[in-house]
């Protein structure tokens, strides 16, 4: 082995050990224990020494075995290349497989209540990701307050359903409409802003909506939240074991045994359909003039103006359409939970959705699905480890950024072609 290389690897691993010492020394090494009602520092230097040694030795072996061929930087390993290649070329096959899998999912043997709940949650995030993908991925407007539209959708659905008793299929479009209007409301003041400045204002907007919901007690019941939101029914057939007098239920109508899973499966297909509508709408509108204008605006706003594209209308439609789908997802959330409070619409939700879109690959529909499975899945897998969940989340983001810096699926397909069709 090259002596220079060995030397530099050794140096590097010593440095890693130093960093590990600086990090773990105070965190792990100094533990405070209560002895006789007083806090006493109890050093644990052996554990620290073990961790530091592990990091240093581990780094040394990574240096020697993994980075050896590649001179530490440059070409990824052949395994990484194969995955990259697969993701770059097989995007549409992955998408088709995912759709088929999600349709048969409820009937798979392992799909019990727990898995269905996770699937519904993931599907909600996928739909939100697809909605935000219009704003961030296509129009390039970094919106950090997307959860506000989710909240507007959920609250308007809940209020309409509770106060007027309208059915799900009337409240859903209304909630979408309201959220879309809020999208325009946010759009107007931020028309001239770009990048960081836009991100700050949208972040503030998201918080404003949440604080408004907290304090407007007469309408939203503030921190108490709204309860008794009607559950969705299967075209008028409720999912209840003991229905009211003279009301036919889903299981009696179809002559089935009552099972609480029926409602869960219905909810699953509901969000699947809503998400797929979002998806097909986005795929279609991307190929229309307005979709191309969104992408052109992301690429170069000044060039857009010089070609007579109206940047104001283009941005507002992006905000409105993205917000509308957020509102649809919000209505679904409200009807699934039957209870909503401002607690569900904190900034971390926005951050997760933005992470899903960015890590999936800006503008890629399939990428959103893959990154949702990866990120939300990891959070779920680590549910039992409480405080390590966010570490896992952060780790997943770092991994994606290291191996796929442009997102999981970064390859963009042109919206219209000329050469290929000949």
């Amino acid at each position, binding site marked *: 082995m090259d002596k220079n290389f060995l030397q530099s690897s050794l140096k590097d691993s010593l440095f890693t050990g130093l960093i590990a010492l600086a990090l773990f020394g105070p965190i792990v090494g100094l533990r405070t224990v209560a002895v006789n009602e007083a806090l006493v520092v109890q050093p644990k230097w052996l554990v620290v020494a073990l961790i530091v040694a592990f990091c240093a030795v581990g780094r040394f072996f990574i240096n020697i075995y993994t980075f050896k061929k590649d001179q530490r930087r440059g070409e990824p390993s052949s395994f990484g290349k194969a995955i990259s290649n697969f993701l770059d070329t097989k995007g549409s096959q992955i998408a088709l497989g995912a759709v088929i899998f999600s349709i048969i999912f409820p009937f798979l043997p392992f799909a019990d209540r727990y898995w269905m709940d996770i699937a519904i949650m993931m599907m909600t995030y996928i739909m939100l990701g697809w909605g935000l993908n219009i704003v961030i991925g296509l129009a390039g407007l970094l919106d950090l307050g997307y959860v506000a539209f989710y909240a507007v959708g959920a609250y308007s659905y809940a209020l309409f359903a509770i106060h007027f008793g309208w059915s799900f299929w009337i409240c859903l479009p209304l909630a979408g409409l309201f959220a879309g209007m809020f999208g325009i409301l946010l759009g107007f003041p931020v028309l001239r802003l770009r990048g960081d400045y836009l991100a700050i204002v949208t972040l503030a907007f998201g918080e404003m909506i949440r604080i408004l919901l907290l304090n407007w007690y007469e309408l939203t019941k503030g921190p108490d939240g709204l309860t008794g939101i009607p559950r969705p029914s299967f075209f008028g057939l409720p999912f209840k074991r003991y229905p009211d007098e003279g009301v036919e239920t889903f299981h009696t109508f179809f002559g089935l045994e009552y099972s609480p899973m029926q409602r869960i499966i219905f909810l699953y297909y509901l969000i699947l359909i809503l998400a797929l509508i979002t998806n097909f*709408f986005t795929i*279609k*509108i991307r190929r*229309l*003039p*307005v979709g*191309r*204008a969104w*992408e*052109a605006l992301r*690429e*170069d706003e*000044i*060039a*857009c*103006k*010089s*070609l*007579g*594209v*109206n*940047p104001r209308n283009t941005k507002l*439609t992006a905000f409105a359409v993205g917000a509308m789908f957020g509102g649809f997802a919000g209505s679904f959330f409200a009807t699934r939970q039957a209870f909503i409070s401002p607690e569900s619409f904190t900034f971390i939700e926005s951050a997760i959705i933005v992470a899903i879109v960015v890590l999936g690959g800006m503008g890629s529909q399939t990428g959103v699905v893959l990154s949702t499975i990866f990120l939300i899945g990891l959070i779920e897998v680590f549910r039992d480890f409480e405080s390590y969940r966010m570490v896992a989340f952060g780790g997943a983001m770092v991994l994606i950024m290291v191996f796929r810096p442009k997102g999981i699926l970064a390859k*963009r397909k*042109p*919206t*219209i*072609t*000329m*050469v*290929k069709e000949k």
Partner: protein
Amino acid sequence: MSEKLLSVENLTMKFGGLIAIDDLSFSAKKDQITSIIGPNGAGKTTVFNCLTGFYKATSGSMFLNKDNKTLDLKKFSDFKVAQKAGVARTFQNIRLFPQMSVLENMMVAQHNKLMVASGFSLLGLINAPSFLKKEKEAKEISKYWLDIINLTNRADDNAGDLPYGDQRKLEIVRAMCIEPHLLCLDEPAAGLNAKESAELNKLLKFIQKDKKTGILLIEHDMSVVMGISDHVVVLNYGKKIFEGTAQETKTSPEVIEAYLGTEE
């Protein structure tokens, strides 16, 4: 004697205390190539930015004759100059949509008419035949222009992946897609080699002669300016110091002084 297309009268642009353009008047005729030249910082690009609505001129007026009507360009704000008045422009540092394909670049330039054809997306969403027909026409127009600059076989590649010279030409034909009356080109020959500038000359001549589009040209490359300009306006420190034909410009003592300085 051809008809007047653009007349700029007493145009002044101030940035705080700095006077970028000082009482400038000139005119450009239909089917002619008018060049604006001058040393760096003379205010050439500022003139373009005023004309195309990117800046609001401090004072003065700009009129465009379009279909026997006189339009006051000062009344149009940024994108409306292109949309309503039909003034297209290119940029000194190329501004394509680099992550979009060449064809998509051409389609975005035809945005306004396609937007109407797609019923503001409603007809487009249901694949209305009237929209599909218009879209096909727009594609034909794109193909027509791409054929002229020999880029048809790269129509599906990202615009940002094209060689520099092709990007310049693509930006010009993209501007032509809005069917402009006046095409403003900001240093189209910058960074081109001799062969590419010769091709550029040919393209500009074609636009001028066959498309009957007036061209306003900012250029440093004298082979381009002298080769194709019908009319030359020379600026220095925001003021017009000379106006005339290419031949007259070459021998004008004021111009030589502005570029080379005076003899002591």
